[in-house]
């Protein structure tokens, strides 16, 4: 019996390709399919060279042999607009969908905050929020696990080169989905998200600011320790996740300043915003895979 769970990646762009390179190192995930819509796309060509089965016919191209090929987990790295249809089709074939688009039709998953919940609920579709959400929601949660946070706000600054056409065309989806994630996953009563795109050269490493307004005066020692602990949790799958300054306390305001450097697998190191997405998506898939391998979770067609 194989000790790895077979997976498919839908969307051979920058995210999909970076995810493929990371998944190839996984002890429990075996990427076997790359699904695209353009036969000439470099990501499809690369995946084929790496020995994956490929199709340029979209998800339809994989469906006929998907079960035969043993695919139990799919990653969607396409766009929010086509995600729902992709998800429905692969769920019908009994595969779990890890959604890297901001479609957010399944429950949010931010690994160090609620991965265990997502997996034990056996959701057939989980959503990875947004890159800014993956970078900041763990820190909102680090404060809310100490005390009530009435308002959580994040500012994500990414380099122009790392903000792809999808993000640019749908920037409202980023702010809305991230704000909702700050509430649902981060635990703040009200969430607010801001994204800034900076074109400086050389490109800046993703930086994020998290501001929390606490209900009562902040417990400084407990929050500081909680933030340090959380940074270490995220570093397990994104080693370049670094606390730059803070937590700074000013009345009931708690501010945390971080930087996210990527691994530089396929995407450059400055694109920590994209790296944290692929790393979190893979981390989530690995947890599902461990449950499947241990026989505790059997994905089923819906």
């Amino acid at each position: 019996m194989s000790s790895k769970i077979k997976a498919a990646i839908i969307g051979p762009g920058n995210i999909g390709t970076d995810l493929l390179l990371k998944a190839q190192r996984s002890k429990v995930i075996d990427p076997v399919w790359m699904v695209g819509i353009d036969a000439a796309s470099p990501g499809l060509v690369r995946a084929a060279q790496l020995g994956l089965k490929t199709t340029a016919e979209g998800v339809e191209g994989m469906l006929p042999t998907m079960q035969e090929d043993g695919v139990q987990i799919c990653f969607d790295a396409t766009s929010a607009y086509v995600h729902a249809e992709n998800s429905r089709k692969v769920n019908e074939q009994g595969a779990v969908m890890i959604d890297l688009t901001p479609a957010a039709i399944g429950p949010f998953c931010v690994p160090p905050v609620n991965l265990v919940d997502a997996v034990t609920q056996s959701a057939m579709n989980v959503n990875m929020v947004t890159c800014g959400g993956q970078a900041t929601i763990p820190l909102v949660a680090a404060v809310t696990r100490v005390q009530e946070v009435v308002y959580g706000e994040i500012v994500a600054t990414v380099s122009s080169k790392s903000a792809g056409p999808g993000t640019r065309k749908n920037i409202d989806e980023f702010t809305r989905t991230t704000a909702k994630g700050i509430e649902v996953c981060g635990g703040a009563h009200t969430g607010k998200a801001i994204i800034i795109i900076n074109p400086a050269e050389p490109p800046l490493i993703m930086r994020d600011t998290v501001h929390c307004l606490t209900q009562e005066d902040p417990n400084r020692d407990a929050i500081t320790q909680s933030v340090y602990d959380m940074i270490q949790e995220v570093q397990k799958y994104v080693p370049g996740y670094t606390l730059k300054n803070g937590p700074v306390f000013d009345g009931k305001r708690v501010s945390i300043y971080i930087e996210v450097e990527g691994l530089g697998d396929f995407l450059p190191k400055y694109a920590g915003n994209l790296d944290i997405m692929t790393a979190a998506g893979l981390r989530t898939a690995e947890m599902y895979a461990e449950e499947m391998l241990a026989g505790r979770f059997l994905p089923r067609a819906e």
Partner: protein
Amino acid sequence: MDLQGKKITVHDMCLRDGMHPKRHQITVDEMVTVSKAMDEAGIPLIEVTHGDGLGGASVNYGFPAAKDEEYLTAVCKEMKNARISALLLPGIGTVDHLKMAVDCGISTIRIATHCSEADVSQQHLTMARSIDNLDTVGFLMMAHMIEAEELVEQLKLMEDFGAHCVYITDSAGYMLPDDVTSRIALARAELKPETELGFHGHHNMAMGVANSIAAAAAGANRIDGSLAGLGAGAGNTPLEVFVAVCDRMGIETGIDTFKAMDIAEDLIVPMMDHLVRVDRDALTLGYAGVYSSFLLFAKRSAEKYNLSSRDILLELGRRRTVGGQEDMIEDLALDMAKAQGTL
């Protein structure tokens, strides 16, 4: 320079850009009083929004005295001739805010992005253009940071997305008149003839009026200013001064010069928490090309961490920060304080 008979639309910024030096604390009553006086003086277009645009209420930029919806509702219903505009920065505000502002009665929406990132405005400009009779404006900030050719490519994107009017915005008050002339002239030559062209200046190098005249001479037909210069940094182009210069040159603005002077002196100056002028830090913004609304944030961080505000601003310039990166200022101040061993 003969601009006799040239018609331009002057757009007042006191109640939006002026929110920065007021830390967004202008009250609804003040907004109504000022805008009614402006309407009476013949100012045709007045911007009313949080300083950082719709949805700008935040820890990062400051919570305002009232909601955008309250300001806009109160002001729009009092206008006899003047039209009201709102500003929106994608990444901060969303199309939901835009729809709210339209429901409040605005007639102009301005969608602002960093000068090289016009494509993030597509969603908002396209939506705005689909609304009947909504004057739709694309607004490229920090326009000194790229050359005229690249800037015009970005303006054309906004034109394609549906903007009736596009703006070259000197957010840092860095430009000198020749910088304005080259950019406006190329834009005018390359844009569709029916697309309006605007210039928004800041007075950090005391070039607000000169730059605005240069813009008008090179083909701009909308000019932003604010009475008594109430705006970020050393303020916007002082509107009453600009209008007086236009009068002397025969440029037609439709604004009563003496009434404009009176509002500036009697209403706006008394509202100021500090005199908006070219002080050392505001001059540094213009000199180093730094976003004007960073001014008070840099002063506050300098005081809190015992640093020079000029040093903070110069470093922000070196790092090529863009509009909206206010969160960078305390982070940077902490790094600088650690480096000098005082933290």
